[in-house]
């Protein structure tokens, strides 16, 4: 299944991305107020959606790991956090590029932007924690705890900063948007989704192999390297 997906997904994802962006850039009408600048939405909105989806996977893996520890859940948590951070960064950068002609500034302290910035910094901390802890079991437990705490914090930040005044527009629903704009947005969203699954699959495989190598090494190798200080049998 994994191998099939790894072979089949790249052409599907690429095809969807090209189709969605072709329709978005050439076929869909320009926005009445913003003109062609609005077309960045076909990449910005799906990127942020997919980032939130990947980080939700990370939260679920963190909770599951604490109840039922397994290297697979831990690897999936690591993979989804990294991919979510990637898509989130892409989304925020695209939003900044869009904000310059529309709002006149790259960055402003509106609730949604503030929340997005805090989200990125929180998960950068999460990734740093994973790098800074050597013991794989402790790393897994601690990053699960940090993953839960970071995910629970985000709605609180969202509501707390919302009490300032707001600039970012509210979500548009398919009812309020021209159908010709909805179609490329949907196609791009599926393209980003396919890329997310692909990235997570690859990253998950690497993470799982890393875990297995970390756990296997101290017992399998003669203990004359820097590993010599490890207690035998503790994995």
């Amino acid at each position, binding site marked *: 299944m994994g191998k099939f997906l790894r072979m089949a997904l790249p052409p599907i994802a690429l095809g969807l991305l090209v189709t969605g962006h072709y329709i978005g850039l050439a076929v869909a009408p320009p926005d009445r107020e913003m003109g062609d600048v609005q077309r960045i939405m076909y990449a910005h909105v799906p990127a942020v959606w997919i980032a939130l989806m990947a980080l939700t996977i990370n939260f679920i893996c963190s909770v599951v790991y604490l109840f039922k520890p397994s290297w697979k859940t831990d690897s999936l948590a690591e993979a989804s956090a990294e991919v979510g951070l990637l898509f989130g960064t892409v989304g925020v950068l695209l939003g900044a590029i869009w904000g310059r002609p529309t709002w006149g500034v790259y960055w402003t302290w509106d609730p949604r932007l503030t929340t997005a910035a805090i989200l990125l910094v*929180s998960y950068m*901390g999460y990734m740093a924690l994973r790098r*800074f802890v050597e013991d794989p079991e402790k790393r897994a437990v601690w990053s699960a705890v940090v993953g*839960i*705490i970071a995910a629970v914090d985000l709605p609180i930040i969202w509501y707390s*900063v919302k009490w300032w005044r707001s600039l970012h527009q509210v979500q548009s629903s398919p009812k309020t948007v021209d159908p010709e704009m909805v179609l490329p947005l949907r196609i791009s969203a599926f393209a980003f989704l396919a890329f997310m699954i692909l990235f997570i699959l690859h990253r998950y495989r690497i993470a799982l192999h890393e875990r297995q190598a970390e756990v296997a090494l101290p017992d399998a190798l003669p203990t004359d390297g820097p590993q010599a200080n490890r207690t035998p049998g503790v994995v």
Partner: protein
Amino acid sequence: MKRPAPIGLFRAAFVLLGKDLLIEWRTRARLNALVFFSLSTLLLFSFALGPDTKLLERNAGGYLWLAILFASTLSMGESFRIEYENACLDGLRLAPADARAIFLAKAMGNTLLLVALGGLLIPVMVALYGVKVVLGVGPLLATLALGCMALAAPGTVYAAIASNARARDVLLPLLLFPLIVPALLASAKAMMLVLQGDPMNQLNSWFGLLGGFNLIYWGLGFALFPRVIED
């Protein structure tokens, strides 16, 4: 032979809190360092911004909370460093008591230390920035207590993690600062209202946010902490 009953959760927490406070009282190393650190932070704000008294007066609440926040990362890291020295934490884990008592004791100890620090900093801030406490001492102390509790609960969990990891001095602020944004926002806003008066009656909504934040993080810390220190 009757087996002795395990010690109750709150009793164990207060015994541990007493132990930590006794260590702190005998050495006074932590509070001394924190007081001078945060005093110089308060001074540095006025140097960095120039001698504009209006500006300093308007933002005094925010500066006070930043000074407390910077000091808190030092203090909370230290509260677990003393346990990792001589493997004291192993001893605590082996004791026939609930591991969650360790969280309660450490978080309460950190809160108390930060409140004491805030109590020392507020008179200095009043003198240094020329502010008046318009709403009186009651709301001032409530803001201080709620804000310090909100910093201490997630800070204790993260300090337990960071103090055992590589690069612990970098890791704790990296994890903690994004997390406590709502608490910092609410405490700074509430403190500014306490200092400058509250004509629109907004203070209670910021207290509500701080209360909710405290409830969530004391609960999460209480539930998750045993997993953090298990071996």
